[in-house]
């Protein structure tokens, strides 16, 4: 992996091409969202190549989840563009972005509590990737197997433990058949061994060809999976590059690790 420049005037597409990637799956251009005077996203430019795994870190309130909301479409940007496979999807509604290939999991798990675990996936598979119920059944069973939820398939999602809910978040997002999987603090609140299992699962998902963008506070879990880190603070991208390089930079240590310590 080469270096990822962050200097002004450097086109991310060129950077990608220089590094040998040919397809940009996701790109944001000058993406901005203000809540009153709070800049939740302040001109964010970044790209993710197909097959890549990118980590996003930053202090609380840095705008990480807002960025996901802008990409997945449950928030409309004030300005800027979101491109998926080169197509501008900034004005598409959330359900169309889902159909276009964006799957998203929530930081605080939000399962459909009155549906069973299996039904949670079935809804996502039928509507998200437009499968028939018959065709979706096998896909959903496979995902439940992959995410370790198969034995809980027929219990109401409302009765799951925290780890299981986090897994369901991921499983349901996968069931929509995403090209791009957005994971929002999926390792938070887990024990060390649970976190280990989760990392193995996410690596498996990536090995299956799904592109991943992962917001996480637990840096060691993140660097075990991602090729590249992006650091956000006050809605701005302040650093981007190889995980070791980024975590070693003085600015990141001061802003991010300083707060975390």
């Amino acid at each position, binding site marked *: 992996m080469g270096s990822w420049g962050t200097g002004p005037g450097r086109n991310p597409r060129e950077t990608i091409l220089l590094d040998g990637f040919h397809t940009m799956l996701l790109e944001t251009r000058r993406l901005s969202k203000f809540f009153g005077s709070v800049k939740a996203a302040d001109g964010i430019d970044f790209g993710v190549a197909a097959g890549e795994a990118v980590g996003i870190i930053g202090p609380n309130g840095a705008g990480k989840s807002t960025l996901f909301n802008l990409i997945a479409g449950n928030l409309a940007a004030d300005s800027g563009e979101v491109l998926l496979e080169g197509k501008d999807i900034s004005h598409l509604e959330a*359900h169309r972005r*889902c*159909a276009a290939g964006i799957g998203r999991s929530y930081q605080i798990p*939000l399962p*459909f509590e*009155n549906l069973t675990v299996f*039904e949670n996936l079935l809804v996502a598979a039928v*509507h*998200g990737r437009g499968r028939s119920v018959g065709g979706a059944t096998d896909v959903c069973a496979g995902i439940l197997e992959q995410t370790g939820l198969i034995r809980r398939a027929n219990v*109401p999602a409302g009765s799951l433990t925290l780890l299981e809910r986090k897994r369901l978040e991921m499983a349901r997002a996968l069931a929509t058949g995403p090209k791009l999987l957005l994971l929002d603090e999926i390792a938070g609140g887990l024990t060390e061994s649970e976190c280990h299992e989760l990392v193995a699962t996410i690596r498996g998902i990536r090995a299956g060809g799904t592109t991943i963008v992962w917001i996480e506070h637990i840096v060691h879990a993140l660097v075990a999976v991602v090729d590249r880190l992006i650091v956000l603070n006050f809605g701005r991208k302040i650093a981007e590059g190889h995980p070791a390089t980024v975590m070693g930079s003085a600015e990141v240590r001061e802003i991010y690790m300083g707060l975390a310590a």
Partner: protein
Amino acid sequence: MTAWIDTLLQGVMLGGLYALFAAGLSLMFGIMRLVNLAHGDFIVLSAFVVLVLMTALGLDPFLATLLAAPALFGLGYALQHYLLNRTIGRDVLPPLLVTFGLSIIIQNGLLEVFSADSQRLKAGAIETASISLGGGIALGTMQLLTLASAIGVILVLNLIFYRTELGRAFRATSDDPEVAQLMGIDNRHIFSLATAIAMVVIAVSALYLGMRANFDPTIGPARLLYAFEAVIIGGLGSLWGTLAGGIIIGVAQAVGAKIDPEWQILAGHLAFLAVLVLRPRGLFPRAGQ
């Protein structure tokens, strides 16, 4: 003793009518958290639609309702798609205001077109037919049919909810509309289908409302009140609960009327109050609500 059993049975069957009134309201509230204040007026409007079809084509009320149902399905879809979807959001006030406005518009529109005269859907011999159970107890065929229809409607709605893909989407959207959208569900389409189905249920309620009693353009709000009480007694979002709620109000009214005819309406409201005090979330509250 016989008189009391008779009262109880009459109450249960009256409850069937209230459950029919309530089913459409329960459906819309359960899926969209939308309180349709014009629900009673839509029942009256549908009764007039059936009446017009009967008069124009010389049909009996059942056939006329069958004919009206697809049109009302379409009306429901359009109403939700073009109007009510715009009002749904985190704030509960806009849908209340808009449906309250609809209630006034429908009442006055009907008054303008049909005048304040009482109307009835004439069903012929079935109106007075009855089945004898022996021991001096007889059940009106029409009353029995009402209860059977209420059970049938709720059975069908439950089948849709728990046995079809559309129902799964209804339940998912009801749990969390925002997340449902991220799972690829087009909320607005799902909501429009919900209202469309509710309008068909409303058509069935209108049929029995019109055959069992006189109606005029102004009686909608009172039907809304009974429907409301039935939904809340049963527990928000539970269709079988709504049936139970309707029957509780029906029995309370029948018992009240038996003691003193002036107590009929009051007794129903008192039963509602009692349930609110003892089980504020209703008899069959849904998990996680």
